[in-house]
Each structure stands twice: as C-alpha cells, then as structure tokens.
C-alpha cells in the first residue's frame, strides 16, 4: 500500500448560529475524525465557524451543467410563484 494518498474531503462551515453550513473548500484526510480536525485547523483559524461538516468528495453527486437549461430554465417562466406577480388594491396592509 505504498504511494496511496489520502482522499479528498469537502468542508462546510456554519459561521454562526442561525446560518446554514456553507461550502468553504476541500482538504485531504485519512478518515472523518482527522478530516474534522484538519478542517478546524485549516478553515477556522480566524474564528470563521462554530460547526463543521466534512463529506468525502467521492460522495458528492452534482447535476450536469449541460442539463442546466432543461433543469433550471423551466422555472423562470413560472412567475406566478412569486408574490410580485399578483396585484392587490392600494391600501391593503400586511400582505
């Protein structure tokens, strides 16, 4: 088992309570425990976070950019999903 390097992990950090974890980058680690510790040492040196997720990059599945048109454009025309689509009479409050 020579020349085998550590797998790649994606790192997600919650910067403060109430916010989502956000992808910040990647790193190499042999297992989840050290991936978390490495993420702490690499990505929170300036108090950037209060919680960390790590996911081995192999397990991330991504949509195909060449499908982007068919995946995401259809929703562009469905303007009725947005409140600004509807007109309400002047003077109506709290709506």
């Amino acid at each position, binding site marked *: 088992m020579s020349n085998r390097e550590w797998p790649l992990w994606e790192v997600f950090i919650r910067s403060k309570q109430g916010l989502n974890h956000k992808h910040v980058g990647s790193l190499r680690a042999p297992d989840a425990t050290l991936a978390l*510790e*490495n993420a702490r*040492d690499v990505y929170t040196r300036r108090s950037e976070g209060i919680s960390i997720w790590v996911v081995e990059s192999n397990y991330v599945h991504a949509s195909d950019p060449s499908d982007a048109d068919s995946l995401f454009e259809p929703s562009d025309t469905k303007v009725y999903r947005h409140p600004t689509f509807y007109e309400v009479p002047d003077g109506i409050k709290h709506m």
Partner: protein
Amino acid sequence: MKNEDLYNYVLRLGDDSLILGQRLGEWCGHGPILEEDIAMTNISLDLIGQAMSLLDYAGVLDGQGKDHDALAFLRFENEYRNALLLEQPNGDFANTMMRQFLFDAFRKPLYEKLLESTDMQIAAIAEKSLKETRYHLKHTSEWVIRLGDGTDESHQRAQTALDLLWRYTDELFFQTEEDTTLISLGMVPSMSEIKAEWSKTVLSVLEEATLVIPTNNWQFEGGRRGMHSEHLGFLLADLQYMQRAYPNMKW
C-alpha cells in the same frame, strides 16, 4: 520577590510551554502533509501564547519589572525550569507526537485543577489554556493511536518514541517542599492527583494504539532544578540569538 514559591511554580509552567512551543515551531514548513503542518503550528501558537501569559505573571510575582521577553530570552541555561521531556529534539513525526501526547495528558488535568486555584490570575490563565489543551490532547491521542495501530513501520516508530521518551515522564510530576505550602493554600493541586489522571489517559490511549510501556522504568530528572540535557543549549542558542547578538534593542 513578592511570592517566590508561586514564582517558581509559574515559571515551570511557562518554561514548559515556551520550550515545547519553540520545538514545535521547528516543524513549520516541514510537516508530513500540509494539513498536519498547519495543525502542529496551531499547537505551537497556543503554547507560545500560554508562555507569554505565564511568564508575564511570573514577572509580576518576581516584582522586578520583567516581562515575558525578559524571562524567555535573557536567562542562562540553568535558570530554565522546563521538564527534560520538552527540550528533547523533535526526531521523527512519531517522536514529536508522542512527546506532545505525554505532555498534553499531563497538562489537561493540571489545568483542570488550576481552574479552581485560589489565585485568580492562575485560574484565569488555566481557563483559557485548558480549552486549547483539550484539543491538543484529542489531536495527539488520535495520532498516537493511528501511528501505533497503523503500519508495521509506524508501529515500530511509535514504540521507539515511547521507549525513548518514557524515562522523562516522571519528572512532569516533580513537586518541591515549597509546593506543599501552595497546595495547602489551595493555589495549586497535588501532583499525585494529576499523575493518577495522566496514567489513566496514557494507559487507555497506548492500549488502543497497541503500544507497550517499556519494562525498564529508570527515570531521568533535572530540568525542574535547572539541570538540563545537552539539547537545551542549542535550542537556546537559536531562541536567544537576536537578544544576545543585539542587546537592549526593540524589535
């Protein structure tokens, strides 16, 4: 001197942090992988920070207006009070991690007890340092286990490190006559309590790491009395170089 007994005690704490922080700093840029290079530097930074707080307080107890730099850079070799363990050369990564682990396993229960110190300044330093030390112990325990129970080569290296460093461990629990006074005043804990905690941690981690404690338990001591190994002189030659070569200048 305002409080010689406490001064001596705090000096030992400060010198431990200083000398080990200096040693770990040698790794910066040379670690076995980038992630671990960064991790070791974090530990070194924590230790240098602790040394600054502790030596500043030692300076206050000394009452001669010395700050952390005066104490860190301008003493002679036999005036340093760090344990011999901490001045030992880095050696390979297994040796560095083992040295750090044996120390962290001692420092953590010590800081936990110092939290309750009747001396407010010590309690405050312990509070900040304990958080750092808990992480150090976790990280070094993980590594000792991985090296011990990793490959044949890493096991051999970890065992060699343990065999080499074990003889410096008793000295961590050194206690003077004067310390007894401090203990009775509730300023510092008795080392026997700390040693019990240390043994528990060390035994359980070493067991998981499949490493064995050397059968020959012959122990060295001296650092706490200013009697150091040959290694300290070289370490100080680097540490003190600028202050000795360019005396009385501000940097």
